């Protein structure tokens, strides 16, 4: 187990190095393939009347004047060891994990991401609970009562769920609930859980629902398919042959086996949401990681966007590792 984790941690680091490489290629090399030059890229970061010296300064600051491998190694080294940036007047210490410094809004990338994380965390945790619970519950009920009215209703709902994009569902729900009847706060309202837990909960209901609906639909389908598979397994028949009650057969034997792959997928999806629930955050104007990603892209804030992407990737690969370990714990056949 320990050697597995150690080995996998190496793989995680390797994977993050690849992600960093790809992100750097996207932001530093792609524009040049597309016909831009270091100067035209740099000029977006200087003031209104860029002097050649200023442009040169920015080129140097971003490292456009170095070869790509050198830039890449510098970037990785900076993450590990931290560095000191100069903003012209003074040196800014950027401690490890130093993901860089945004010259757009004069903020360090890492603290900015951390300060936006609570919003995304709020969305992810609440929605995660909702979609896992409702997805598994309705998928389970559907599978157990296959062909029943309940099954058909939940399958139709699930189909609607996977076909309704968040940015269409959100207005459909907000219009009556928030604007017409004022039952819930209008989209865009957000307070931290620490400052006002009650208001936080109310503010989060719509984002949670909108994000969870589509994913719950997916999980309903996954759970139902998984349960149907498991219910036809020999060991379920054995359990019944032993005279166990149906409830015990379903929950202790079938669900236990069907849930394991679901939890794996849940781990991945949850991690993806933690790396930024982009559509929900944009639709509800919530300043989380996904919102940060979009504004960074719109502002051409490359260091910020690279940091966000790397951060999101780290969540996903770590979740992957965690899920594999959990899988080994859940399934005695898996040996690490």
């Amino acid at each position, binding site marked *: 187990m320990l050697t597995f984790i150690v080995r996998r941690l190496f793989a995680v680091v390797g994977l993050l190095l690849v992600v960093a490489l790809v992100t750097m290629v996207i932001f530093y090399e792609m524009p040049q393939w597309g016909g831009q030059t270091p100067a*035209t890229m740099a*000029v*977006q970061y*200087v*003031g*209104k*009347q*860029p002097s050649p010296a*200023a442009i040169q*300064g920015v080129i140097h600051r971003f490292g456009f004047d170095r070869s790509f491998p050198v830039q890449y190694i510098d970037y990785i080294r900076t993450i590990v060891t931290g560095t000191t940036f100069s*903003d*012209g*007047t*003074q040196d*800014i210490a950027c401690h490890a994990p130093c993901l860089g410094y945004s010259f757009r*809004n*004069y*903020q360090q990338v890492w603290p*900015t991401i951390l*300060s936006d994380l609570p919003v995304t965390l709020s969305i992810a945790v609440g929605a995660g609970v909702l979609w896992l619970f409702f997805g598994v519950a309705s998928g389970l009920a559907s599978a157990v009562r296959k062909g029943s009215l309940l099954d058909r209703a939940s399958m139709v709902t699930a189909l609607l769920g996977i076909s309704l994009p968040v940015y269409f569902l959100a207005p459909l729900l907000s219009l009556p609930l928030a604007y017409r009847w004022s039952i819930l*706060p*209008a*989209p*865009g*309202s*957000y307070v931290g859980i620490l400052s006002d837990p009650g208001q936080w909960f109310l503010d989060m209901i719509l984002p949670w629902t909108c994000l969870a609906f589509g994913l719950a639909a997916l999980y309903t389908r996954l759970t139902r398919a998984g349960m149907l598979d498991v219910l036809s397994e020999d060991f379920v028949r054995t359990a019944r042959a032993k005279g166990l009650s149906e409830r015990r057969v379903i929950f202790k034997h079938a669900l236990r086996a069907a849930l394991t792959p679901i939890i794996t997928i849940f781990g991945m999806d949850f991690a993806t949401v933690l790396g930024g629930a982009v559509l929900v955050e944009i639709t*509800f*104007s*919530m*300043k989380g990681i996904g919102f940060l990603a979009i504004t960074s892209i*719109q*502002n*051409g804030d490359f260091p910020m966007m690279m940091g966000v992407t790397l951060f999101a990737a780290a969540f996903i690969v770590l979740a992957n590792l965690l899920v594999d370990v959990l899988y080994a714990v859940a399934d005695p056949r898996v040996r690490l």
Partner: protein
Amino acid sequence: MHKPRIAAYAAAAALALGAAACGGGSSGNTGAHGSAAYNVGLSGIVNKSPATGHGTLRLEQSSDLQSTDPGNSYFGADWDVMRLYTRSLVTFAESPGPVKLVPDLATDLGTMSADGLTWTFHLVKGATYTDGSPITAQDVAYGIERSNWGQEVLPNGPTYFKQLLTDTTNYQGPYTDKNPADHPSGIETPDSDTIVFHLVKPFADFDDVLTLPSTVPVPRAKDTGATYYEHVLSSGAYTFDSYAVGKELDLSASPNFNAASDPLRLHVAHAARIVDKVDVSAQTVDQDLLHGTTDVDQSGAGVQTATQSQVLGNPRLKAEADDPITGLLTYLTINTTIKPFDNIDCRKAVEWAIDKSAVQTAFGGGIGGGDIATTVLPPTVPGYVQQDLYQTPGHTGDLAKAKAEIATCKAAEHITDITTQVGYYIDQPKDKPVADVVQQNLAAIGITATEDGFKYSQLSIKAGSQSYVKQNNEALFITAWAADFPSGYGFLDQILTPDGIKPTGESNYSELDDPAVDSLMATALKTTDPDARNALYAQIDQQALKDAALVPMIDSRALMLRPSNVTNAYIEQAYGMYDYQALGVQ
């Protein structure tokens, strides 16, 4: 200068407000307790109250400040907020209606030498920072130096002083040249109360320039460069308590403000505290205004379209709203050097082809968008004269005349097809529909124009780059302009004269270099009589339109709310939004 959010100045704007279709507010209610009604805040003070140090004034906005550093922001809304915690040499009188310059840190509006090249100012006695230390002329000089010559650290603010003042030593700015003894030759501080400016050419509007936050004093010892925005040393009536990027700015009434140094009572802390929440979503700002959980939208951008319908449909809400002209002109530039638009007939065809009425609707209509513009100068800028060189009924354009002009042009140029590109900012949501309308209008006269939307941050490599527009045949550009400081020169010079033609970072997107315009401008700068000067600005305006170098389209308006608990609310025309320094809460 490019920042299309800067408010403008008006000398005699009241007439314009009355004339505008959706304007109004000519009742001029300045009574002690101005009753709330639609557009009353344009000309009178609503809920006048002398109370000081009372309650918390809550501001909100959907964006963040560009910077809280007085030397590093080009946003009019930021400048309006800065007056809460800073003082500049000159500022605007605290009154509704036409803008009036008044001295703030200076004792008067300055003394100009006979040759017009030297301006001398004295500082008021007893002015201090919030920590009690005295404000000196050296601090004012340093503020100008850091913001104008220290662009490598503070890139965002205006740099007029660098252009206007002599600089024989080629000063490198305080961040590169760390020797405190070095200065640009154009600024002298013979003693701690006196500051002398030496100009490169006569400039009658110079005191207007001193309203810029560049003249806010900054002690050299306290300057931390790029991070100064985190703890600005307050010189105004409110102390700068804290500012968290993307979260909020906190101010509180300063206990150390010396009212004696402010004889005009420009800096009165009506509220005990001011909280400015930033990066709140636009919908939330509107909802909070409607529900009374915030007092003012600090961005001054006006309510969202959805909220606008709600406000206009509800008499109670409408009475708490103002719809001022913001001083921002949205216009279409026609590059006079790109074929076939170097031919004036092709440009005139465009002038006739644009359906300004459709543009107005696309831009948000008369209330949320603005008035149809027929001149370069907005009604709130001195020199404005009502005229319309390309008059058509209902401003819908004249297809027949446009087609005739285009035919003439095609014949002269020996071409059959005209294709071009029209640039616009995609981060200005109202510009995109305007581009769609313009594209359709041009298609109607046989000009194929493809849209080229780009981000404001890319301006200098797109429409702001001469080589880009020529290589990509981008003769047209939809942009907006407002004066940085209140004068016709401030509005016209950069967009109509060679001063604005640069290989990159240009602002004269028409690349208009008309000797007639240039000589009129030179004359105006030497003319000391304001009325004569303004008449010259009006002539420049006309000449540019005769040249068909640009199509003025919309003078922006924004519908703003002032909830009933807000006191002393009125529109400061210099910024085109409420004067935050005057606001208090009941």
